[in-house]
């Protein structure tokens, strides 16, 4: 497996947050890490990208890669327009001409060309998050990490942006890691769902091979029940 975490252990003083967490991340799939709020999902992400040290375990494949991020907040720069916000993360990766082509290409792909010169303050919360997702896909990386990106959105925006994410994912393959506590988000987006327990966090169940397109309404309901049971018990 190209990307993997093995037996990750993390303790804050006497509080054990992660207890031998092992997850394999298949290339070009969306892997959802699902767990209750405050169980240490963000801690695990920080260990994966190297911004936090682990006490024990192995992180494989992430160190050498450029990684795209989508955060809970859009983290757009207020004094830059959409084009320059996307261009900001690309600046050191490609020269101006290539950069402009890449930005135009992505804006065209998702029909957002008309917003190219809009400033963040002129956009709605949902639209801002779309730009942040677009920025993540335009960035030349093989991995995309999304840390509860739909948390602050209303139901309608959430649905639109999830569709938007899937569309971009189809157009531009990346290994996506989505951290969430929302079962519906995991079901809608995940090719694989990893369910975590309460602290000290362990992997409770891994649900694999669930191609979204083949999923019927009935199997979706069953899957939802299964996940709910895992999270409750």
């Amino acid at each position, binding site marked *: 497996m190209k990307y993997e975490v093995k037996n990750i252990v993390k303790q804050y003083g006497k509080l054990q947050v992660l207890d031998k967490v092992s997850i394999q991340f298949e290339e070009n799939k969306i892997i959802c890490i699902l767990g209750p709020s405050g169980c240490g999902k963000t801690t695990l992400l920080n260990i994966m990208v190297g911004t936090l040290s682990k006490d024990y375990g192995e992180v494989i494949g992430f160190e050498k890669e450029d990684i795209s991020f989508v955060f809970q907040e859009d*983290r757009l*720069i207020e*004094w830059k327009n959409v084009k320059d916000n996307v261009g*900001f*993360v690309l600046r*050191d990766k490609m020269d101006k001409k290539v950069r402009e082509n890449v930005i135009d290409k992505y804006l065209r792909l998702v029909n957002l060309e008309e917003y190219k010169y809009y400033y963040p303050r002129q956009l709605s919360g949902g639209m801002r998050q779309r730009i942040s997702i677009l920025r993540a896909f335009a960035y030349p990386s093989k991995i995309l990490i999304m840390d509860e990106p739909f948390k602050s959105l209303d139901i309608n925006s959430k649905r639109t942006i999830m569709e938007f994410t899937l569309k971009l994912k189809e157009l531009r393959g990346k290994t996506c890691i989505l951290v969430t506590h929302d079962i519906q988000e995991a079901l809608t987006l995940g090719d694989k769902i990893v369910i975590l327990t309460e602290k000290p966090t362990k992997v409770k169940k891994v649900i694999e091979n669930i191609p979204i397109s083949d999923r019927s309404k009935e199997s979706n309901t069953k899957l939802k029940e299964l996940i709910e049971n895992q999270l409750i018990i």
Partner: protein
Amino acid sequence: MRNFILIDKKYSMISKLIIIFIWFLLSKFINNEVMIPTIRNTLINLMDIVKDKSFLIIIRMTLLRGFIGFLISLFLAIVLGILSNTSKFIYNFMVPILSFLKSVPTMAIIILALIWLNNNKVPMFVGFIMVFPILYETVLNGILDIDYKIIDMAKLYKVSKTTLIKDIYIPSVFINLKAVLTSTLGLNFKMVIAGEALAQPKYAIGSNLQLQKLYLNTPGVFAWIIIILLIKNILEYSLGLLIKLLKKAKQWK
């Protein structure tokens, strides 16, 4: 946004007319040129001052002192403000200096400046001690106000330090500075004139104000005040225009 806090040109003009009318009434009732000069006499003095061959040199020299002093303040504020954010030593080194500039009476520092510096430098120094602390703290706050989540995002996307400084730090500093630029430029101009009145350099608005006072020529003082107000308005207008042009050039927004 409350509409009434925006300047309405019509009301502003009415207010100006009322002030001129009160001036007219006071000069008529008091009837003493030394206390309140008449509008007519003030205008005659104004014409005399403007016609004088040294008038343009006086204006030029005062403006030059103002600009040089202001640019030194701005430059030092930006450099020291950025350095204070990167070095704990410089930040702490600046604390007592700022506290000194803020708490010691300005007049005491000016008197020391009169002893230490030559007549031409005192006005610039006076402007500096008033304006520098404001600009420095604005730069400092501009950097402190930057959303750490944006910096975090930039680091995760491996954005270089140069891009980070150019695209995040500098615009943040200038966005904050823009808000105080007009007021500090005006304050600096006023302080330079005060410094000139005390230091008496050869060509200076402040020196001329002081001269008119010596001769108890109040219409002359009023005439100079009108000239100062006009210059201040022109300065503010030009600065506003410059900011607008820069905005158009997509630097700040």
